[in-house]
């Protein structure tokens, strides 16, 4: 990684995407949702992890999009994939079958044990906000070898108690997840625009392990709905390199142009 130009400007969102991309190792198979996860995974593929295998729930295996897809099933994914299988096969043979190294999830709400809500704000039968729902998340959360969560940090999203558990992290902590008999290890990192959080054994409560440049601990505390803790070993996130930033921006420009933005 080249030394970043310290005068260089980048957004918190860019730092978040680049941090997530760095967690992906070359050769991993990665089950990608649309939006930030897709952006991060493609950034990794175009920088340090050229053989990262991208799998989209719509069926493409080994997609290598030149332009970021807007939807989970854009033609670009189909045309650049090694092959495309039917949706039941993606979920039953590939994800449940145990062939996914990393699942990428987002959420509207997350709690301190990495449980996710993408279903509803308010009571299920009297929703304040009806969210899109589960999608692939519950089984990605259960069956991917490990899960990364990407989520902008705010007290509205990082809540003490979820209105609805759509997808499990560590439930109420300790060995609660282990007792479910899930085949995947669960969420191993939450990547936000402020920091990285990782589960601390044995409780599996998420604690801050890496703080993005320029972010204060106070700001993280204010953006978290529970009394967030910082790992003793918490370090500073390495700022984006010039190459990371350039590749990310090119990727976004190509996507924006293709989808009629700007």
């Amino acid at each position: 990684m080249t030394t970043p130009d310290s005068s260089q400007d980048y957004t918190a969102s860019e730092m978040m995407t680049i941090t997530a991309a760095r967690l992906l190792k070359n050769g991993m198979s990665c089950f990608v949702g649309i939006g930030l996860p897709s952006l991060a995974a493609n950034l990794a593929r175009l920088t340090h992890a050229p053989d990262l295998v991208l799998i989209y729930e719509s069926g493409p295996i080994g997609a290598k999009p030149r332009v970021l897809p807007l939807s989970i099933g854009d033609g670009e994914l189909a045309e650049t994939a090694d092959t495309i299988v039917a949706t039941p096969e993606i979920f039953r043979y590939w994800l449940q079958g145990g062939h996914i190294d990393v699942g990428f999830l987002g959420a509207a709400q997350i709690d301190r044990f990495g449980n996710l809500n993408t279903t509803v704000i308010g009571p299920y039968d009297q929703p304040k906000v009806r969210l899109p729902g589960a999608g692939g998340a519950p089984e990605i959360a259960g069956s991917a070898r490990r899960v990364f969560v990407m989520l902008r940090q705010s007290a509205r999203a990082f809540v003490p108690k979820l209105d609805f558990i759509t997808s499990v992290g560590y439930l109420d902590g300790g060995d609660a997840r282990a007792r479910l008999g899930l085949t995947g290890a669960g969420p191993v990192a939450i990547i936000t625009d402020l920091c990285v959080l990782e589960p601390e054994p044995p409780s599996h409560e998420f604690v801050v392990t890496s703080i993005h440049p320029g972010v204060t601990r106070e700001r993280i505390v204010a953006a978290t709905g529970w009394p967030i803790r910082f790992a003793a070993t918490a370090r500073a996130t390495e700022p984006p390199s010039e190459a990371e930033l350039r590749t990310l921006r090119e990727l976004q420009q190509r996507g924006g142009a293709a989808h009629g933005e700007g």
Partner: protein
Amino acid sequence: MAERMSLREAISGYVTDGATVAMEGFTHLIPFAAGYEVIRQRRRDLTLIRMTPDVIYDQLIGAGCARRLIFSWGGNPGVGSLHRLRDAVEHGWPQPLELLEHSHAGLASAYVAGAEHLPFAVLRGYAGSDLPRYNDDIRFIRCPFTDEELAAVRAVQPDVTIIHAQKADRKGNVLLWGILGVQKEAALAARHTIVTVEEIVDDLGAWPNAALLPAWIVSAICEVPGGAHPSYAQGYYERDNRFYQAWDAIARDRQTFQAWLQRHVLDTADYAEFSRVLGETQAVAGAEGTAAP
């Protein structure tokens, strides 16, 4: 055996009030033209099944066709909410909408069970999730060999499945390729299957192991070029991402939505006229620099 007919005939023949209808296509090959025809024929009390309701079900729900929705992810892909779906769920407008909610893995498995003529499917799923508390079609069973606990979902068996495909031949064999979603499962699980296609050709030119639905499991074939717009048909046209983005503004407001529906769907005779009117709207929007589809 596949019978060739107009989309109007197919919908009026197979989609009855109160029917359970699956219109599938995962982002790709979504049968929008068929959806408009269902709205145009003012079908009511439908149970709609679809993994990703997408704009097509936002339209059907907003038009008051649906009583119940079986689904697994209800957003406008890459854009945001489905406002008509939300309005029905949050405010009961234009009527209440009963939800039966799955994960993708669960609903895909339920389609597989339907295609396999099994009453249920087994999966590693839903563990620890609140979804089974609100959906009685998700239960847990034990493996008769290992005693391990696993999820079970009730099969879905639509009265009618409607899909869009790239091609059919004159006998009614249907070929699709690219992102396949659960179309084959939805077709095989249904009592009747309506297929709209981009074109009818002499020879499908199918490669080995192609995703082909033989004529004898298809009820109706309708030639409806462009019938998957604003989704796409690989090899024919790309996804109209601008339409999806513009839909957000149209659907956010009840009046805007109703005006759009009246002008484009209810006041048009068929999909050809719909396309003509939509083209006019888009030309005006383009000239004004606004984002109407």
